[in-house]
Structure formats: structure tokens, C-alpha cells
């Protein structure tokens, strides 16, 4: 009898766990965790991992600005110029932007590798724009939406996670530049404050 009730308790716990797992895909890395490595194809046809990503001076980066973003999401489009500006400002200072497109092109044809390449050429993206082929990398990070930022230090430890700033919809209305402040904090040997922020984004389709 005892065994039976224990069994059913375990079952119900399993059910609860299972439900929360299915409905909130937030498992992944947090502040202080090492950013998972990857080997992904850039829009120029070359393959990149942390080992061969360099800053604008050809040096090992002081940190990596990893941004899950895509062609099709209006929030990503609204952030495009900001992402370009971030790379232009911070890549010479040791913090290159590494953009990763996490959507399955089977579900979002506008995010195919060809469409990514076309967008990158049209806008003259100065940063890497990598295809998460098979959608294996964004789940490792626990990224759920575009755009979504992970800022790491030189040892690939995540130091900031969240939004670029406090107004993803409208660059002109931005008051607080979370990501830039986080980079400044790292430059000053401090922990970013805040370390995590949230914004509305397009759910990643894997």
C-alpha cells in the first residue's frame, strides 16, 4: 500500500515536472555558466566556433556579444541597426557581435540560409551571422526568443543575459542601454547591474 502511494506520488511529481518542462522551455545557462561552444556556418560560407572568432584587431576577444536574432521577427528588425552599431563600436574594443539565427527555416522560410545571406549582403552586416543548422545551439543556451543577448567575458563565462536596451521596439525611445552598461562594467572589472533583463521577443521556432 505504501509502495503504491509512493509510486503514485512519484508519478504525479513526474507529471508536474514534465508539464513545467514542456510549457516553459527555460532550461539553459545562467549568469556564471560557461557559454556552450558551437561550430556554425557564417553567411560567407566559413565555419566559426569560439576558437576562431576574433575582435576587429585580429585578437582574441575580451568578451563575446552573442545575439540570437533572425530576419523575420519585427523586434529583430527593429534592433538590426543597433546590433550593427554595437559591433562597430565594440569589436575594435575587444567585444565582437556574434549573431546566431536559431529558427528552423522549414517553419520560417524567411530565415533560410539564403535569406540570411541576402539580408546580410543588403544591409552589409559587419558581424558574423551564423546559421544554427538543426537548431542545436539555442536550446543549449536556453534562448527562447529573438533578439536575445548573452554577453560573456574572455573565458566565455556568461556575465549578462537579456535585452540590448529598455526599448526593443523603438530605438529612439531608449533610456537605458543594458548591454552597453554591462560591457562597461566588465571593462571596469565589475559585475553588470542588472545581470539579467527581459523583453518581448518572437518565440524561437525549432
Amino acid at each position, binding site marked *: 500500500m505504501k509502495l503504491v502511494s509512493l509510486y503514485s506520488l512519484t508519478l504525479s511529481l513526474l507529471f508536474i515536472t514534465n508539464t513545467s518542462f514542456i510549457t516553459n522551455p527555460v532550461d539553459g545557462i545562467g549568469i556564471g555558466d560557461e557559454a556552450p561552444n558551437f561550430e556554425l556556418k557564417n553567411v560567407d560560407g566559413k565555419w566559426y566556433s569560439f576558437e576562431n572568432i576574433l575582435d576587429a584587431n585580429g585578437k582574441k576577444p575580451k568578451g563575446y556579444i552573442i545575439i540570437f536574432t533572425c530576419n523575420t521577427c519585427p523586434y529583430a528588425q527593429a534592433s538590426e541597426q543597433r546590433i550593427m552599431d554595437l559591433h562597430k563600436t565594440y569589436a575594435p574594443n575587444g567585444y565582437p557581435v556574434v549573431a546566431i539565427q536559431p529558427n528552423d527555416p522549414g517553419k520560417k522560410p524567411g530565415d533560410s540560409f539564403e535569406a540570411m545571406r541576402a539580408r546580410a549582403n543588403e544591409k552589409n552586416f559587419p558581424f558574423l551571422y551564423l546559421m544554427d543548422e538543426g537548431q542545436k545551439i539555442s536550446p543549449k543556451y536556453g534562448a527562447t526568443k529573438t533578439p536575445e543577448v548573452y554577453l560573456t567575458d574572455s573565458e566565455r563565462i556568461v556575465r549578462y543575459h537579456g535585452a540590448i536596451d*529598455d526599448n526593443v521596439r*523603438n530605438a529612439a525611445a531608449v533610456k537605458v542601454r543594458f548591454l552597453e552598461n554591462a560591457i562597461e562594467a566588465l571593462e571596469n572589472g565589475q559585475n553588470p547591474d542588472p545581470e539579467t533583463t527581459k523583453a*518581448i*521577443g*518572437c518565440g524561437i521556432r525549432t
Partner: protein
Amino acid sequence: MLYSRFKIGFVTIAMFSSMACREIPESQSTQRAADVKTEKTSLASWPVSNTYLGDIAVYETFDEIKPLFRQQSDTTYVINFWATWCKPCIEELPYFEELNKAESANPVKVVLVSLDFPQHLENKLLPFIEKYQINSRVDVLLDGSYNDWIDKVSPEWSGAIPATYIYKKKEHHLVGIPFESYIDLLNSVQIVK
């Protein structure tokens, strides 16, 4: 692992309820007695908007729409965050419409909170509602300071849409991914119903 997940869930619920409880005393302490009554009333009553687009309430700030997430009646509220440009949102809308119709005689209230951009309300949202003859209640939330209010809906929510917050009094549940079917939605509603 099992235990830790369960614990996180519990802590989240505890945090949320303590947040909700703390809110009233804090605001009370800074207000005169006359205002306290207003505050209590507004928390329990339906949110009031200053702006309407046809019969759609448009909320400029999260504070204005907040009472929608703090109702104390015996109704189960099913609040879906969506936008007309969000394909997975559109794909799951029929399930909410079906729920709205099926539960019309029951204490279940479906609210579709549109996060469409301000410049798209008249030329995209309104035509969309008309074209697909959406019968569920549609509200618009324009507050772009997302980091300030996403956690006030639910700390479990990453900010990705679609997302659905389902609650009845203190029981609540956040679904951060699209529903695959009507049954899928029904099962989530049953958790708090």
C-alpha cells in the same frame, strides 16, 4: 533534479503570492485612507482604459491593465499575449476562440492582449479582427518598457510570444510556448480551473 524543479516551481509561486500580497500594504502606507479604498477597488475591479479603438481597450502602461491579472472572482482567466505579425500566435488563436465559445456559460474569461506596435493598430490589428471575426475580448497593451512589467505578469515568462497566463485567484500557470491543439489548451486551463 525532480526535487529541485518542484522546489523552483514552489518558490516561484511563493514569490509571486508574496509579491501580490505585499503590494497592497506598501501602497496603503503611502496613501491617505480615502485613497486606500480606491486602490482596493481598482485591484479587484476590471481595468479601466482612457483610450478605445472601436470597442477595444488600449492601455498605455502596464499599471493600467494590471487589475486584469489580479482578479479575485471565481473566474478562470485565460490571458494570451499575441500580435498580428506573430505566425505561431495566429495559428493558436482558433483554440482560444473555441474555448471562448465553449465556455461562454461558465466562469472562464478569455482575453487576447495584443502587443502590436502603436503604428499598426488601425491598419493591421483592426482589419485582422474584422477579417477573422474574433469574438474573444481583445485588449491592446502599448507599454514598451518590457523589462519593467514582464515579471509582474509572471517571473516564469521569458518574454517570448505567444505566451498565455492562466489564473484563478492565487492559482496560476504560465505557458511560454504555442499550444499545439485545442486539447492542449484545455489541459492547461484544467490545471488552475
